[in-house]
């Protein structure tokens, strides 16, 4: 079974993302991959060159849902700063309100979709028998 899947759901003005993962780390990684696919407009995602620099991410949030929003916003902000889109994502540790991860990215000349931010609007995170599902709206 795939460890994570995602769909882009209808929204009039923004992008609504539904992500599933067999576990929370997988869900968070999948959310990052969905973001990268949206920004690049392509799947499968290009992989960073083996020699490309890695970056460490450490986040603390009010709760797990807020942590998911913070994670996506961290990737968006870093993309803006480094001009990379992060397509190699590994969540090393995920607790209820904190995470540590390491990420690597590619440097595209243009973006298909400029994402402004992940929002708290309609934010949902549910656990079920097969893992976790979340819904997040992105401002584009």
């Amino acid at each position, binding site marked *: 079974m795939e460890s994570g899947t995602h769909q*882009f759901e*209808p929204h*009039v003005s923004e992008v609504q993302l539904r992500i599933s993962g067999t576990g929370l780390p997988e869900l968070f990684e999948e959310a990052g991959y969905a973001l990268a696919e949206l920004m690049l*407009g392509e799947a499968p995602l290009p992989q960073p060159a083996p020699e490309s620099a890695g970056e460490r991410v450490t986040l603390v949030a009010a709760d797990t849902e*807020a942590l998911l929003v913070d994670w996506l916003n961290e990737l968006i902000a870093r993309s803006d700063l480094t001009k990379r889109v992060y397509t190699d994502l590994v969540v090393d540790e995920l607790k209820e309100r904190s995470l540590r991860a390491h990420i690597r990215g590619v440097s595209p*000349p*243009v973006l298909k979709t400029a994402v402004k931010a992940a*929002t*708290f609007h*309609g934010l949902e995170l549910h656990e079920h028998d097969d893992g976790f599902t979340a819904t997040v709206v992105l401002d584009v």
Partner: protein
Amino acid sequence: METLPEVPQRLEPLIRQIGPALYELGQGFREDMRVPARIVADSELLQQMVQDRSVPQLVNVTTLPGIQGFAIGMPDMHEGYGFPVGGVAGTALPDGVISPGGIGFDINCGVRLLATGLRHEDVKEVLPEVAHDLARSIPTGFGRHGRLSLSPEQMDRVLTEGVPYLVDTLGLGTLEDVDYLEAGGCLDGADTAKVSVRARERGHDQLGTLGGGNHFLEVQRVERVLDVEASSALGLFERQLTVLIHTGSRGLGHQVCTDAVRIMDSALAHEGIRLVDRQLACAPLSSREGQDYFAAMCAAANFAWANRQVLTHRVREVFRRWFGDRSAAWPRIVYDVAHNIAKLEPHGGQRLCVHRKGATRAFGPGHPELPAAYRQVGQPVFIPGSMGTASFVLVGQGAAEAISLSSACHGAGRRLSRAASKRQVVGSELRAALNRQGIAVECPSNAELAEEAPLAYKDVDRVVDVVEAAGLARKVARLVPLAVLKG
């Protein structure tokens, strides 16, 4: 979220018409509403609005602490996040809340209209090359090439002084420019200490860039003058060459909003308060969180005005290259309005924090904040259509004060998602169709064109008719595109 039943033909009993192009959903609809929700629309636009979640989102806005009067939906209202796009709400100072989601991530996204003394027929032959020169002169895409990069000290000055700093110190404009910008291109109250390091880093090389999505720079001609007196005051005439710029505060503004929502959400969580929509995270304007956000928002707004000023400078450089130094070729600023912002304004004897999310200010004649040349006719309001369709210039009317806190809409409003638009429109065919209409298109992506296709938006002529019927603003001129540049 609540959903409304299908709206009956006569829009009764839940949403009732209370005036020309004005509807109300009373407080009794939901227990937590503090004020009614009002919508400026005709019956067809209202039917479109109830197809998405914009009306329930407007109802959620009515629950904000300190909200006065009513939450208002503009004729282009459509589903957003937190506030609907095209939503207006005023909260009472000092303890009414300020909600970053009620302004949006793109703080001071707005529109600026430039006008020349040139006629379309004077420049028709070279317009495609001019458009291409504009595309080369304005950085787009994801890279760093060709960008203006600010030092930390320059960034501080931009954030606190806005456009006057660019004009006085960097020579990027004239003193006259400042008179024709909302707030003179600078909001007092900016505090650079409240803008995070990350926000400053994101913005340091983004002045003079358009950004993506529905941002654009459009060369236009005035197709028709609709009000002789007002168009004369604004210096508009038929067949005139104009330029419309739509962009905002870029990554700096996005980060300011991201930071503030996070802080306010944490503060509410700490107090054990759950909002009906977490994106409506807010704090009393008198609180530390509220004051900090307002100071950062002012700084981001100043950055956005500075962004549009640098773009104006680029347009002027290109026009000078092609049309020389004669005064007719000089693109002067008609006006510049924000459509994602919070302003402290007096309304109905109270001082309110007016949130405008996808809505613009529309002061009527006589308002002291207007440039002297416009005081007789009212504040210019710009309603761009979608790509390839008309845009309108209007002037605010005094009646807007009581109806909409002196607000009007900011565009045609989306009615289809990007995905739905792409399913129905082939980008390359749209590009060819626009070219056949005589519109030069500078956009690298056919997919992006398809997402912004005219059919994805409401009918701008209808939206503008409703704005006028409701008494918010009156039509001055209709502009049509000649060239479109997208980021």
